[in-house]
């Protein structure tokens, strides 16, 4: 059975190895460059972290973001091109009627095929995730932003959960639809949808967020906005290493009432940093809700666990369904 699986899969496996080799080369080069840049801009006496951030952001934000997207996309591609056709193509060409009549039980046939292809998907995705995590680690350390929804699914172990889920989901869709191309399309659409729903609707609530009132400082807020009604809102708040769920909270004065335009304008207009420093002295506050930095690994494991659980349920269905024949 292993021989047959390999014989049917080897073409795709070779393509995957070629793609992996190319991407790995790129990521290693990228990682080495980032390390050099880190030594030059950050690990030096008297270097300004702010200036280093500017250098890093302009040079590496885009490559890291795009390779990050790739790491999330690879499980989807694996699910669509390896998972979905695994059963669907057999049904489409009728070859399941050939292979199911060899002296091998359908359960074993399915277990070997599903097992090997899932393993290949995990290895491919895992290698990419590992390489990207390594390449980006100085950048991530500098910005302390790995909890960010754009980075979280592209680093460490989360992509492994996506890979297992995508392959098993592809196989399940292939079993239900029994046609290769529609199964691939449905799998991709479903996978993308899940990757949008997860960070927006599910992940923020995996653990109760910490909600607290914190002082407004020039360091944690990027700036402020005053709307037509004279209300003042903070622009982008950052808590080191944490995932801030409140996008731009309203500014409150020292007494806890909404801050007014007049209170802000009591600071004289000056060059930006002096203006911000003045505002900081007025004791403004804001209510923030966030997932603290020390929960990062809990969330990684929860993410993997959820996707593995979903994959397990789908696999259970497939293993229940296949021995019963196609009626």
């Amino acid at each position, binding site marked *: *059975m292993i*021989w*047959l699986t390999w*014989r*049917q899969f080897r073409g795709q496996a070779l393509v995957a190895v070629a793609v992996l080799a190319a991407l790995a080369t790129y990521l290693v080069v990228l990682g080495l460059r980032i390390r050099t840049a880190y030594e030059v801009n950050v690990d030096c006496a008297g270097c300004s972290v702010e200036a280093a951030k500017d250098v890093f952001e302009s040079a590496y934000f885009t490559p890291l973001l795009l390779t990050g997207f790739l790491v999330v996309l690879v499980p989807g591609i694996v699910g669509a091109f390896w998972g979905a056709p695994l059963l669907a193509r057999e049904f489409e*060409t*009728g*070859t399941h*009627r*050939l*292979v*199911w*009549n*060899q*002296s*091998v*039980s*359908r359960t*074993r046939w399915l277990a070997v095929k599903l097992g090997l292809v899932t393993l290949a998907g995990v290895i491919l995705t895992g290698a990419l995730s590992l390489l990207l995590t390594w390449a980006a680690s100085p950048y991530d350390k500098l910005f302390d932003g790995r909890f960010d929804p754009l980075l979280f699914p592209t680093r460490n172990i989360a992509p492994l959960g996506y890979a297992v889920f995508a392959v098993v989901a592809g196989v399940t869709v292939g079993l239900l639809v029994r046609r290769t191309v529609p199964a691939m399309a449905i799998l991709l659409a479903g996978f993308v949808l899940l990757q949008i729903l997860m960070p927006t609707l599910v992940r923020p609530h995996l653990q109760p967020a910490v909600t607290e009132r914190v002082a407004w400082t020039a360091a944690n807020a990027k700036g402020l906005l005053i709307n037509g009604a004279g209300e003042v809102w903070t622009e982008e708040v950052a808590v080191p290493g944490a995932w801030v769920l409140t996008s731009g909270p309203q500014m409150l004065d020292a007494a806890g009432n909404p801050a007014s335009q007049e209170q802000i304008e009591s600071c004289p207009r000056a060059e930006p940093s002096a203006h911000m420093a003045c505002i900081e002295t007025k004791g403004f506050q804001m209510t923030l809700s966030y997932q603290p930095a020390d929960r990062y690994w809990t969330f990684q494991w929860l993410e993997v666990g959820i996707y593995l659980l979903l994959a397990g349920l789908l696999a259970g269905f497939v293993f229940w369904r296949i021995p*019963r*024949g*196609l*009626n």
Partner: protein
Amino acid sequence: MTPVLRTDALGKRYGRRQALTDVTLSVPAGRVVGLVGPNGAGKSTLLNLASGMIAPTTGTIEVLGSRPAANPAQLARVGFVAQDTPVYPGLSVGDHLRLGARLNPGWDDGLAQQRVSQVGLDPTQKAGRLSGGQRAQLALTLAAAKRPQLMIFDEPVAALDPLARRAFLQSLMEFVAELEVSVLLSSHLLGDLERVCDHLIVLAASRTQLAGDVEDLLAAHYRLVAARGDLDPPPPGIEVIQATHTARQTTLIVRDTTGTLPDRLPAAEHLDLEEMVLAYLGRAAEPAGTANAVQPLEVSR
């Protein structure tokens, strides 16, 4: 000896469509069984049930004494070639033989190699590029080389040209003689089966119409021709399968249930296989509830 196929009140339903109804059969071992019937009669359904590709809705089916496809040992005892003889288009002929060797503990590689060279298949050729006849030969080789006790073929020759059809049936009969295997094969054309079968099952409108050894069946069926009215009512001890009338004459196709018909009616003639099967198919095609009535079959000339 265990029957190769035994079914009891077997039924299969696809959604609202009843594909097979109340089929009760017992096929003894060592036969070449022909399963005939028009398209949509339920032949594929019965064979797919026998190979365990699908599960019955009602009733039971046993193949060689066990539930079909119950375990690898049972799978090894049955060789099934599905309709349209599926093969992996991307794998070569040699790959298919390796597949057979890896997945079947009882694989007879000598037999497989010999058959492949005998029918002139190139082991390096991709199976997707084989002609229909070559593909059927490859599928037959795969099914035979696992050395099963029963080989099942679903419409093996339907898509083949007359030459390939003859070659395939020839190969099949060689296997039967060589391997002492029981065979169950279906066709919607009786002509394909007539020469090779010694047991017949006629399936129409999802039910069995007739089943038995060909010799016994032929011995029990007669044509009675008489002046109109002379056979009304028909003599006792016979079952009228089909009746046709002209203005003066009545022709009955009957089944003798007593074994004494020739003594009582010396004019009774034997039928050939095709006439007999057509009579049953004709009866099955009539509206329900009128099968044994004489009038609705009346043909005015």
